[in-house]
């Protein structure tokens, strides 16, 4: 008990710099220690204990009687023609029960969450390293793996296209052509010029979502000829539909059951695992399980788009932006996936949260033979943030103005226009965010502490030397959109039922770790005054709730849960209100009691609910959006979220090693729904941003992935993660969002790399135009 209270107190204290009224409702008068409940309280996730104790079941832990093990044969080449596939040797191995290839796909042979352009199994051409070619089911995982290796594939090697700039002129890599999308955004006067012009070229690397749990799944055939897929899907209904299409089944014959999700900052699960799994289960009539190795995981799932950006900023002598010209080239890999949406975000936010009267942005996303790109949180927005903030630093240097001050002169506010012509109608407290991080005091230099306690770049007992360390301070301001953009039908359905005083939420919104399950419980606690709220496991027999991306579930699924809970509330209160001769609005539920406005009537919620079974289902569908037109104009986004970060870094300028000392974060959150969870989301996002800034880049040579393991792909460790100081959480409620809250996870990811790059620039005087920042880019002469 005291441990939990202490944790709550710490979390609260950290956020309390700005938030005052965050006490638990009714905590003051409650005699016994109160468990946090309702909106605004640090309600703990229901699965915390199981997850910390290691008893929480993930897909890799699932078991079924008589299960077979699957293995997938993947292409060792980035680009090759398949001349022949011989599965005979594999099929004849003892213990092998089935081998499937392209020829065994009964339904649609291509799939894709957005555009069906990806073959289930490559058959004529392989387009990226790791593309699936065949799959095997056997009675032992080793047998399956050996059998997959025994499949003889004859390839004719083709030249891989690995430079997106070469993709335009290269032979078509795919029947759909190499250009996936081109957006020419035109806004304002092309002839406008500024007194000061700065140019820059920026390159952003390939970040892998690197979920802590690799892909896994279990497929179980059903007696009716269908199949059930147990997997950590983040978009179960879409996955069901594409699986059913590939299996040649009606959608209701395929059921996706969502298991525990072991980390998801991108789309899960890789269909290249789940489709072979389902095919093998249908083929053998046995349950089939697959648990990917880390290497397969790196090769299979989609990554953040590597991006090349060329910018020209015009400003007047006071540093006010006049015009931004930009060219953005994103590398989609071989298949479209979410690339069109990522490009829209990149183009629309190419100027950042700044007022720009004239903007001309050309964006392209093209196919290559590099590893596939797709949705990773903050996609598009993160790449451009690093570039436009680099430009703001350049402009500040050219004008001799402080970087924060220059940004302050240009910040966006509610009522301003985005370069897409869309008016910013939601709260946009960018100036307040920037001011908050600028004005908070800098972390102390360690000079008063004993020298052996300093944590220098290079780590404890590392090569760092105090004399070569320079400290830099930099700023990043970023923005993301919330919910699907450009006319996506955003809708979620939720059911709330109350039986005998205990409530259950049934909603197909997957809790990927973002905390939707906790939020759903809080909403029901708040609306109905019940303590005991459970969230049902997700499967596709429930109505769809859409993907877990772009902060959707906080908004649409949270909104649906709230509406359903309010409908239950009306059902509960109606008889009493009728008896008292008043409307239900005059009755309120607080602290577990129903009271009338005049206090004359009071009854405990438990008493009122006794013997009743109440159900309600509701939908939430926010206002519609429209696609960007031929000039990149349109009201494409439902909502926007902003963040400002001040980074303080120490750089060993001789070795180029960087340690992020502190990141001061101010974020536009709309409303704090769960302080502890919010803080955790911001810290997680910032840490992913630190990885993108300094170490995370899935390297390829001629399209082949190098070091697809966690030694070669360096995620931030505890020592790499800086102090995250949340200095301000601006609570300006977004009136169109349920509870006025904004999703919090993505925007710190977007902003952190830009802030760190800015700080490294300040420390070294180097341009720092590439992410992740390589040590060679952070080396500087001692007197610069």
């Amino acid at each position, binding site marked *: 008990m005291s441990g939990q209270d202490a944790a709550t107190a710490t979390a609260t204290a950290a956020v309390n710099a700005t938030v005052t009224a965050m006490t638990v409702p009714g905590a003051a008068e409650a005699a016994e220690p109160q468990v946090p409940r309702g909106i605004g309280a640090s309600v703990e996730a229901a699965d915390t204990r199981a997850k910390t104790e290691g008893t929480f079941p993930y897909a890799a832990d699932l078991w079924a009687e008589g299960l077979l093990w699957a293995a997938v044969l993947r292409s060792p080449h980035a680009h090759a023609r398949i001349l022949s596939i011989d599965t005979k040797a594999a099929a004849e191995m003892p213990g092998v029960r089935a081998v499937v290839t392209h020829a065994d796909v009964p339904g649609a042979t291509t799939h894709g969450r957005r555009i069906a352009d990806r073959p289930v199994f490559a058959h004529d051409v392989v387009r990226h390293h790791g593309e699936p070619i065949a799959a095997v089911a056997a009675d032992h995982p080793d047998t399956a*793996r050996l059998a997959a290796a025994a499949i003889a594939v004859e390839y004719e090697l083709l030249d891989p296209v690995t430079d997106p700039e070469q993709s335009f002129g290269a032979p078509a890599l795919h029947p759909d052509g190499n250009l996936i999308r081109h957006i020419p955004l035109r806004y304002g006067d092309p002839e406008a010029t500024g007194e000061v012009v700065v140019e820059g070229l920026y390159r952003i690397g390939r970040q892998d979502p690197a979920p802590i749990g690799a892909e896994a799944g279990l497929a179980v055939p059903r007696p009716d000829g269908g199949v059930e897929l147990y997997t950590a899907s983040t978009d179960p209904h879409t996955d069901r539909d594409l699986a059913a299409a590939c299996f040649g089944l009606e959608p209701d014959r395929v059921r996706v059951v969502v298991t525990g999700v072991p980390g998801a900052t991108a789309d899960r699960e890789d269909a290249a695992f789940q489709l072979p799994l389902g095919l093998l289960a249908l083929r053998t009539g046995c349950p089939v399980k697959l648990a990917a*190795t880390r*290497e397969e995981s790196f090769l299979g799932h989609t990554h953040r788009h590597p991006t090349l950006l060329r910018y020209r900023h015009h400003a007047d002598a006071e540093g006010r932006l006049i015009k931004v010209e930009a060219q953005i080239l994103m590398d989609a890999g071989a298949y479209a996936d979410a690339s069109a949406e990522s490009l829209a975000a990149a183009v629309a936010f190419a100027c950042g949260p700044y007022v720009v009267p004239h903007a001309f942005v050309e964006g392209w996303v093209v196919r290559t033979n590099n590893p596939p790109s797709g949705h990773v949180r903050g996609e598009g927005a993160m790449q451009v943030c690093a570039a436009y903030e680099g430009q703001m630093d350049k402009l500040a240097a050219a004008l001799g103005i402080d970087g924060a001050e220059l940004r302050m002169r240009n910040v966006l506010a509610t009522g301003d226009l985005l370069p897409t012509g869309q008016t910013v109608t939601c709260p946009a407290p960018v100036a307040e965010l920037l001011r908050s991080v600028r004005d908070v005091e800098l972390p102390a230099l360690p000079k008063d502490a004993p020298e052996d306690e300093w*944590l220098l*770049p*290079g*780590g404890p*007992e*590392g*090569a760092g*030397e105090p004399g*070569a360390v320079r400290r830099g301070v930099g700023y990043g301001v970023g923005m993301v959109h919330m919910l699907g953009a450009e006319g996506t039908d955003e809708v979620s359905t939720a059911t709330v039922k109350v039986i005998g005083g205990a409530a259950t939420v049934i909603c197909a919104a997957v809790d990927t770790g973002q905390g939707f399950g906790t939020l759903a419980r809080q909403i029901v606690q708040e609306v109905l005054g019940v303590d005991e709220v459970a969230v049902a496991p997700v499967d596709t027999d429930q109505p769809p709730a859409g993907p877990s991306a772009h902060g959707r579930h906080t908004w649409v699924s949270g909104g649906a849960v709230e509406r359903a809970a309010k409908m239950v509330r009306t059902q509960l209160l109606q008889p009493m209100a009728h008896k008292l001769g008043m409307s239900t609005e005059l009755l309120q539920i607080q602290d577990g009691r129903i009271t009338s406005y005049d206090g004359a009537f009071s009854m405990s919620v438990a008493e009122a609910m006794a013997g009743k079974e109440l159900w309600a289902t509701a939908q939430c569908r926010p206002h519609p959006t429209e696609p960007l037109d031929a000039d990149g104009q349109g009201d494409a986004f439902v909502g926007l979220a902003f963040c400002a970060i001040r980074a303080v870094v120490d750089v060993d300028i*001789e*070795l*180029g*090693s960087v*340690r992020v000392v502190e990141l001061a974060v101010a974020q536009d959150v709309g409303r704090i729904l769960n302080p502890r969870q919010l803080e955790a989301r911001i810290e997680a996002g910032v840490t992913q941003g630190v990885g993108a800034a*300094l*170490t995370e880049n899935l390297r390829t040579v001629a399209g082949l992935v190098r070091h697809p*393991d966690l*030694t*070669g792909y*360096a995620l*931030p*460790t*505890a*020592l*790499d993660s800086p102090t995250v100081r949340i200095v301000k959480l601006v609570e300006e409620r977004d009136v169109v969002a349920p509870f006025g809250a904004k999703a919090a996870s993505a925007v710190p990811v977007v902003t952190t790399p830009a802030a760190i790059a800015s700080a490294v620039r300040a420390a070294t005087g180097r341009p720092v135009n590439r992410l992740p920042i390589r*040590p*060679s880019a952070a*080396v500087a002469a001692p007197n610069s």
Partner: protein
Amino acid sequence: MTLPASLDEAVAALTAMPAAVPVAGGTDLMAAVNAGLLRPAALVGLGRINEIRGWQYQDGHALLGAGLTHARMGRPDFAALIPALAAAARAAGPPQIRNAGTLGGNIASAAPTGDALPVLAALEAVLVIVGPGGQREIPVSHLLAGREMLRPGELIGFVRVPLLHAPQVFLKATGRTGPGRAVASVGLVLDPARRGVRCAIGAVAPMPLRPLEAEQWVASLIDWDGGRILAPEALEAFGEYVAAACVPDQGEPVAPGVLHLRRTVAVLARRALGRALTS
């Protein structure tokens, strides 16, 4: 899997099953097995052999058991004996790896980035190999360079390292603040009795490289009987000398990556010598 309790039993087990692979901490080997890259016919576990888990003194040398874990070598009592090896052991990875990984394993797997290797090369360590024909000794550099190999049935039993009673430094450059693979590393030891500086650069080549000319040159500049002080310019020149010797040009124009690596090696060598001379 057999678990011998002595070196003799281990040698007997390996001789009986020539296809068997010895495994100590398993931090490299078992990762390869789990990834499906290796499928040893049998394993001979060395974890129960107590005689190689500690060390003993032998006329001015320490005879280190090959089964010493990085965690054990990182402790202060060991650091007082062979400071650079202790520093390398502490830098060798996260605690889970250091608790399992062993000195002998680091040598046997001979990864270019093995952190103990440049230190052993600088110390001119000698490996005591036990095998069916008894014991033999080979310099560590011979094994790492492939000049001499382990024969069937042979094991690294001990590592003989001189006790120099003088400052030693291990430094490495990595991509992150937390434990990481070395981009370049340096082991540097002073040997006042022989008036020598010995230095080896790790991770830049398949085996640690000894810049012998740079060592001799800088040793000749040091006032061994006095304060062992060098001018900053001399330290700088030593770093450049080492880097030029260990990181060749690899064609014209010299690639930016090569230049950065050379600069990194120069800085590490300069700092290592500076720290050794001032500590």
